[in-house]
């Protein structure tokens, strides 16, 4: 059974049609990279997979581990192991980051039949994961993402991913706006998560991430459809030629 199986997916952002027939299969243990020009539908696909109600599905199916993902509420998806690292992590004044991460982790653990962590065990775990993403500890006592730099917000996303140990992680341009050190740290976090039971869908604009994360497959999205799929060599081709040569609508199938 595939980890993720998307068939003929049409979806809107609000009432604007964006996805125009996506077919994508990701097996357990695979890392896929999704590239494509602005407005091609990358973030819409991420939002649809995470369950945003303002991104309605018009047609098609999404199966996660054989189950119809579209029937699940966003929190159920998260508990089942779908994780979206947001392109623009939301600032939430008044909600302590530490409190939030603990509530989140315990909600997920409870669902998985694990014991909820108390404050001390949680702190031990979160400290260990923070080291991996080189996140200053003082960010835990602040409100969620409030006053965080762009890089700190992205580290916070990866920290959450490491804590929740999802089975399918979708990273929506987590590498955008990062300097090379931050990029390396984020990539290390992603690589730490790689395992035969886990799949990743990495959405990016930049080839440079591929210096640090070695994908199994690369897809190019254009006009709401996957127009090309291939291995690493596709990234090099894109680097050379840009996206222009793809926009004629040449479609590649598996």
């Amino acid at each position, binding site marked *: 059974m595939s980890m993720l199986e998307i068939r003929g997916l049409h979806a809107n952002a609000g009432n604007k049609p964006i996805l125009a027939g996506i077919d994508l299969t990701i097996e357990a243990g695979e890392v896929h990279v999704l590239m494509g020009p602005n407005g091609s539908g990358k973030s819409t696909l991420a939002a649809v997979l*995470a*369950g*945003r109600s*303002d991104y309605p599905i018009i047609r098609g199916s999404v199966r996660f581990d054989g189950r119809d993902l579209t029937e699940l*509420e*966003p*929190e159920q*998806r*998260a*508990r089942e192991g779908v994780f*979206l690292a*947001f392109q623009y*992590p*939301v600032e*939430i*004044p*008044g*909600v302590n980051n530490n409190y*939030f991460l603990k*509530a*989140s*982790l315990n*909600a*997920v653990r409870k*669902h998985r039949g694990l014991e909820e962590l108390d404050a001390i065990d949680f702190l031990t775990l979160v400290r260990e994961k923070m080291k991996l993403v080189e996140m200053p500890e003082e960010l835990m006592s602040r*409100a*969620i993402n409030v006053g965080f730099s762009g890089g700190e917000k992205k580290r916070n996303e990866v920290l*959450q991913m490491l804590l*929740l140990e999802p089975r399918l992680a979708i990273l929506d341009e987590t590498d955008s706006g990062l300097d090379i050190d931050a990029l390396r740290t984020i990539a290390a976090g992603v690589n730490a998560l790689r395992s035969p039971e886990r799949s990743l869908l990495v959405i990016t604009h930049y080839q440079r991430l591929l210096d640090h994360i070695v994908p199994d497959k690369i897809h190019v999205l254009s006009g709401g459809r996957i127009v090309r799929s291939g291995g690493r060599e596709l990234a090099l081709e894109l680097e050379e030629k840009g996206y222009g040569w793809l926009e004629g609508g040449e479609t590649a199938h598996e």
Partner: protein
Amino acid sequence: MSEPRWLQTLRGEARASFETLGLPTSQLEDWRYTARALRPLGELELESAACAEPSPDRGVLEEIASPLFACSEFAFVDGHFDEALSTPRGLSGDLPVRSLRALIDDESDSLAGALGQLARPKEDAFAALNTAHFEDGALVHIARDRDIAQPLHLVFVTRDRADGSTHPRIAVRAEAGSRATLIVDFVSAGDGRCFTNSLLEIDLAENAELDLVVLQRECNAALHVSRTYVRQGRDSRLRAHTLTLGGRSVRNDLEVVLADEGAEVVLNGLFLGLGEQHIDNHTLVDHAVPHCTSRELYKGVLADRARGVFRGRVVVRPDAQKTAAEQSNPNLLIGDRAEIDTKPQLEIYADDVRCSHGATIGQLDEDALFYLRARGIANDPARLILIQAFAAEISDALPAEALGERVREMFLQRLAGATA
């Protein structure tokens, strides 16, 4: 009934004022939105009812008041000070809180100038009613340079006496250089309809500092009107926290006169309206002299069919140069049947001032809600987290951390019990 002559005169005048004024109607601008919500007062016995029942036992009181503290320091039952239930702790020297009734019966000199100096019963029906009918209450006297670390907790318990009224009266005299924290807490021991009409007069002398917390958490049938009058002397500092969590219809008026230079006031407010609750906060900050500062932040959360009213006036008199005044009233409406009428109002007659004001009405941030849900937190708890976060700015600013925690808990408990 042999009260001192001066008090008899005060009461007689107040009774006459109430007869002239009558209960407010919605024709009066200040009562436009709230006169109707208080209409049931017409059916109630407005004089203080005689207290025939024996005192509740200590366990009962602790159960009611204990969400706040381990036990209450100064207890008033149906408006009457209950010495047996009061356990002033952590206080050395003279007790700073005394029963008004006891002082009146003793014809004590310490009452001189403590009652009726700031309230204006001629203009206000509820001030008149309180003055005419108060039975008991507290004189809070913080002597010169005295610094009382232990919060003074006054709890007013109303028992389930159908349609009765109480008129708690509190006079605070904070002498020069003193510091104290005063918590005035209104609770119900039942769920019957009753009316609490409280009146506080607070006089802060030079360089005095007071944290005042007024916590209203009576039952859903309670009617509550509160009048608070403050006068601040030179370099005095007041932080007032007005928290309204309970009651069917509540009207709070808080009036602060910054009467001498260097005085600073912070007015924080939080009101949570659920079900059919009606909560009205009126505030007035009077910058009468130069070089004073006022900062006001009232936050409203209204759900179901609740209705909120906020009217905040800041007056800067012609002489009050170098005034700094801020006022804001953000509101959160949950659902589409809740309502708020807000009117911040600046009246500036001086030219060298820094003043700002504003009000907002918003709903829960859908992006924030989705973010929490995308991390596994279910819709209802995620909403509670966000509503509490909105209120956190007020609960975090409370004088004692433990108090902030209790208020957060109470706030959440009420919210969680409501239809979201």
